[in-house]
Each structure stands twice: as C-alpha cells, then as structure tokens.
C-alpha cells in the first residue's frame, strides 16, 4: 500500500490550478510581509511564527479541499488558515487579541479556530493536533459524509508519541485523514538530523501500512498532485495518507531568532529558490497571466490585508466579563 512520489517526477497541472495556487500563495506572502512589518513598527505585538517559504503547501491543498473539509494546524499556521479561507479581518483581530477576532480574542495566534471555514483546531503543543484530526476524521466516517481532514505539522513533530499513535489509529480504522508534514528542516534551533532518525519522514509510513508521498513542497505541481491523490483517496474511502512536503523556513522560528544555527549558504540558496516569485515568473513565462494582471491581483490583496489590519487595530479588546464565559 505504501507508494512514494519521486521528487523528480514532472507533473502537468492546468494553468487555472497554477493561477489558483499563486493567488493563495501570494496572499499568504503579502500577509506575512505585512505582519512582520507591523511587528517592526510596533503596530502589532506578541507571538508570531512566520510561514514564509512554506506557502505552496496549503495553497495547493486549497485547490483540492472543499469549505466543509477540515483542517488542523499549528502555531506556525497563518498560511494554512488563510488558505482554508478564514476571513482576514477576524483572523487578524484574533492575532491582536480583539473582541472581533474569530475566538473573541481569547484564543490568540496559537489557537485560531473558525469552523465556518473548516479550520477546526490550531494547537501550540507539538504533535497534539494529529490525534484530534483522527477524531474529526472518525466523526466524518461515522456520519457517512465524504469530508476529508488535513492535519498539518512540522518535521520535529514527527518524533513525538502522538504522531505514532495517530498514524497507527488512522490506519487501523482506515480514516479519511491526511497527515501533512511540512518539513522545513528545522525544529526551532535544531536541525532535522539531530532529532530525527528516519532518513525521510515519509519512510515512517511503512510502519503503519500507510500510503505516503514525499514531495518537494515548494513545487506547485508535485504538491498539487500529492494533495489531489490523497484527498481523492480519502474521499473515496481509501484511507489515510502521510505526505512529507519538503520546504524551508525563510525567517526565524520567532521574530527574535537570530538564526545562527542555519548555515548561511543553505538559507541563501533556499531564499534564492523562493517558490512564490518563481511561480509568478512561471505564470508569466507560460502566458497564464500577465504582469499587469498579477500586479492588479497583488495590489487588491494588499488592500484587503491592510483593511483587515485596520479593522483589527480599530477593534476593542474583549469585554472583561469574557474572562469567565465559554466555560
């Protein structure tokens, strides 16, 4: 049952899909750039875990998932949240702890939830989303719907017990769940091989008799193919998939991180291969979109994002009585 997508495979993807992926990816990138500069200028404060470099992964999934499909993500999850369609105003307000946030400001950046968009859980405890995703998939299976659950997590998370238990249970119950390991090569300040004994995380799928794909997560076509195949399988009742999407984290673990543990050339090389401008270039090269069209798209996204920030910044803090509600 274990199959693996060779990273060398060249896959065809329609222009429309490529444009769709770019539209989501650039939205994430602009959002991230906006947030980082808001932190620098002091307009925003608090925790922020940048997903720069990892935009293609959820953007490809966005082409495949339905609104009523479920997504779970982690503290580093703004890309997953945007891609799943969490509205930017409420999302930003939640990041800033405002009453108008998705969670009334009570959850904050590490706990974004927006069931209306299918964004079910954002967790701050490494690995903990995997068993919960299994349960959400189980609910869909028991109800007999064809909803699919996607659980996102990092390479470091593949070493925690919850990963193991979740993959095993998903397999024995043949659940419609997709485990997406966004392997950005680092867990905080620790490089992949220091903590991870598997050559590739996808190698672990065999121990669960589980379908798996190892792909270049920054390659829109590969990533789209893995997303499509795994979602189709899950929807058809053919069980779970583990996807290892190789990528790279362009910014520090947190804004305060001086990134001394990353070899300079490695980082430079990764940034030089930034998948978002690369995809943009491809759209132009392949005449899928013109420079003008993309410029207009980006400007309108920037405006939407700026408005979301303005909305959030103008929003009040929650009413003090909220301390004691929702319990």
């Amino acid at each position, binding site marked *: 049952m274990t199959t693996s997508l060779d990273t060398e495979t060249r896959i065809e993807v329609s222009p429309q899909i490529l444009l769709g992926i770019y539209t989501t990816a650039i939205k994430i990138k602009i959002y991230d750039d906006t947030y980082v500069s808001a932190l620098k200028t002091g307009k925003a404060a608090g925790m922020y875990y940048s997903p720069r470099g990892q935009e293609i992964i959820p953007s490809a999934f966005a082409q495949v998932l339905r609104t009523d499909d479920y997504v779970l993500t982690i503290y580093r999850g703004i890309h997953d949240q945007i891609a799943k369609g969490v509205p930017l105003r409420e999302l930003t307000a939640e990041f800033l702890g405002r009453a108008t946030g998705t969670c009334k400001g009570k959850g904050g950046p590490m706990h974004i939830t927006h069931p209306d968009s299918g964004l079910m859980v954002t967790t701050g405890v490494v690995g903990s989303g995997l068993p919960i995703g299994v349960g959400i998939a189980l609910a869909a299976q028991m109800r007999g719907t064809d909803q699919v659950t996607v659980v996102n997590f990092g390479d470091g998370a593949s070493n925690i017990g919850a990963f193991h*238990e979740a993959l095993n249970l998903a397999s024995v119950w043949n659940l419609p769940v997709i485990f997406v390991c966004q392997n950005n090569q680092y867990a905080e300040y620790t490089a992949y091989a220091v903590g991870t004994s598997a050559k590739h995380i996808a190698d672990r799928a065999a121990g669960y008799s589980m379908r798996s794909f190892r792909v270049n997560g920054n390659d829109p076509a590969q990533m789209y193919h893995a997303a499509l195949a795994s979602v189709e399988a899950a929807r058809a009742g053919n069980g779970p998939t583990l996807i290892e999407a190789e990528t790279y984290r362009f910014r520090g673990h947190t804004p305060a991180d001086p990134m001394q543990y990353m070899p300079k050339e490695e980082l430079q090389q990764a940034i030089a291969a930034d998948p978002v401008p690369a995809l943009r270039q491809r759209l132009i090269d392949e005449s899928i979109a013109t420079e003008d069209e993309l410029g207009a798209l980006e400007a309108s996204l920037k405006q939407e994002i700026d408005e979301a920030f303005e909305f959030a910044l103008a929003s009040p803090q929650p009413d003090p009585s909220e301390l004691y509600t*929702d319990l």
Partner: protein
Amino acid sequence: MTTQAQAAPAAQDSPERVLGMVQAINDALDVAMSMDDTVFELGEDIQDPAGGGFKVHKGLSTKFGLDRVRPTPISEQAIMGAAVGAAIAGMRPVAEIMLMNFISVAADQLINHAAKIRYMSGGQTKVPLVVRTTTGAGGGFGAQHSDMLEAPLTHTAGLKVVVPSTAADAKGLLLSSIFDDDPVVFVEMFMLYYSQKGHVPPGDYRVPLGKLRTAREGSDVSLISWGRQVHECVAVADKLSADGIDAEVIDLRSLVPLDREGLLNAVGRTKRAVVVHEAVRRSGYGAELAATIHEELFGELAGPVRRVGGADTPVPYARNLEAEFLPHAGRIEQAVRSLF
C-alpha cells in the same frame, strides 16, 4: 446516520430491578447509545466477548456493532485525542481509559485540549466528551494502578469531575455526563463495581451534576466524601451513633460542579466537618473543601475541618500497608472524635 436525540427505548425492566454498579453503567451506555446515534464508545478491550476488563461493556458491541463500540490500540493519547476531535465534530464520544493512572499518558489531550478548546475558540467549538475511568486502592494492584487523581482534574478549569458511589447514581450521573456539552471525567472505583448493588431506575434516568446527596442524615457533624469512602463514612456514622454522635454523611457526587450551597448549608447546621477521600491527603480535593468551608463559615465552626485522606505515599503493594494507606474507619472515627 441520525444525529437527533431519539426517544429512550421503552423500559423493559421491572421497576424494582436491583443492579450492581457494573450493570448500571452498562445500562447507561446502552440507553445513551439507543437514544442518540452520536454517542459511541472507544477504548481498549471493550469489545465482546470480553466486554472490557471489568465487563462494563458486555453485550454492547454485539448490540451496537464495532463501529459504535470501538476497540482501540493501546494508545491513550490517540484515544483521548480522537475523542476530543470527534466531540468537536459533533459526536458524543465516551472514551474509556482503562485505569486512572493511564490518564497521565493522555494528560496533554485532557488538560491542554479537552478542557480548553471551548474557551480558546470563544465558544465556537465545544467538547461533549466523557472520559470514563476506574481506579482505587485495596485491590492489591500496586502503585501504578491504584491512584485517585481527581484533585488535579478539579484544578483544571474546563473539566467536570464526577465520582459515583452507588449503582443508581452511576447510571444517572453517567447519562447526565454523556448529554452534557462539556468534558466530564467520570471516575469509577472498581472496589464498588461488585459491592454496590441497588435499585436502578430503567430508561433515561438522570441525576443532575452539581447536586450533592445526603447519604445519612445527622445533626452533630458532617462527613463529606465521594465514591467508596461514602460507605466508610456511613459505617463510621452508624457506629458513632451508639456513642450519641449523630453524624451526617454527604456524598458530593460531582466535585466540579460543586454543590457549594448544599455543602455550606449542611456544615453551617452541624458546625463540624470531616472531609474523607482516598487520594493522597496533601493537596487533595479535601484541601479545597476545607479552605472553602473555613472561608465561608469562619467563626461559626466548633472546630477545624478535619481531613482524612490516603497516606502521603505511593500506594504500597503489601496488603497490610495498603490497608493502612487507605482512609479507613479507624482514622475517620478518630478525626470525628477529635471534634467533640
């Protein structure tokens, strides 16, 4: 699959039926799964023919199928996490953690997720989950299979904590827990599984959470307890009545929510209180109760609130040591007498 609650099945049992606690719990699970298709069970070894380590699930997987009574791998984190996820997505899972000490294996899912998700999501999602577990010293199971760990759970905002002491309460409280919209840890004490027998009403019988039960009336002192120790307290109270001490015994039933008013009324009347629980005394729930009573009834009490708990040790294996670990009748009696 229907997710609407349906009418409870017509009670086929005689109204006078007498059940043990295991059967009462089995009955509650049966009724809940019959009433509502979103209710299901998951846990280790719960399937027939065994029907669980203590036979609590006997017949249920045969009746409802392995889809609704789901045996799991030995994966407490996945059991708890899957239950949390299913609850968020609209089901009412009843997860079994075979023994309470193993909750520590799944504590992250319980403490950081089940308890907090409704709050963190600003009420967008809720976690109508019951975690059933069993435990208790006195069975000769040693230090890793006997702990009462209810106190830490009461310290976790967002969890409800229930400990039944009778067969009827086990049924009525479990049904209330299953249909509650918040996570409930339902702590059974296996020493009561076969020793407790009594009339258990048929059908959709519920006992509300947060209402104490007066297990024995009395006017001189209030013995406050839950689970197995309620019966120890009643025995001690009966004995003391020969000496003219008329002791009331209060069974809290649910620790969170606490029937604060009922508790303070009772002690306000008797002016003396002894809290008795099996868990290690230090930082047990008895401390919270004692502190609360003193705060609210300062100056009205005839003596300090006494706390009788398990020894401040792990549960030892040797029979004599285990018996001494427990808050036995001798220690309860001594505590009561110290107040007169």
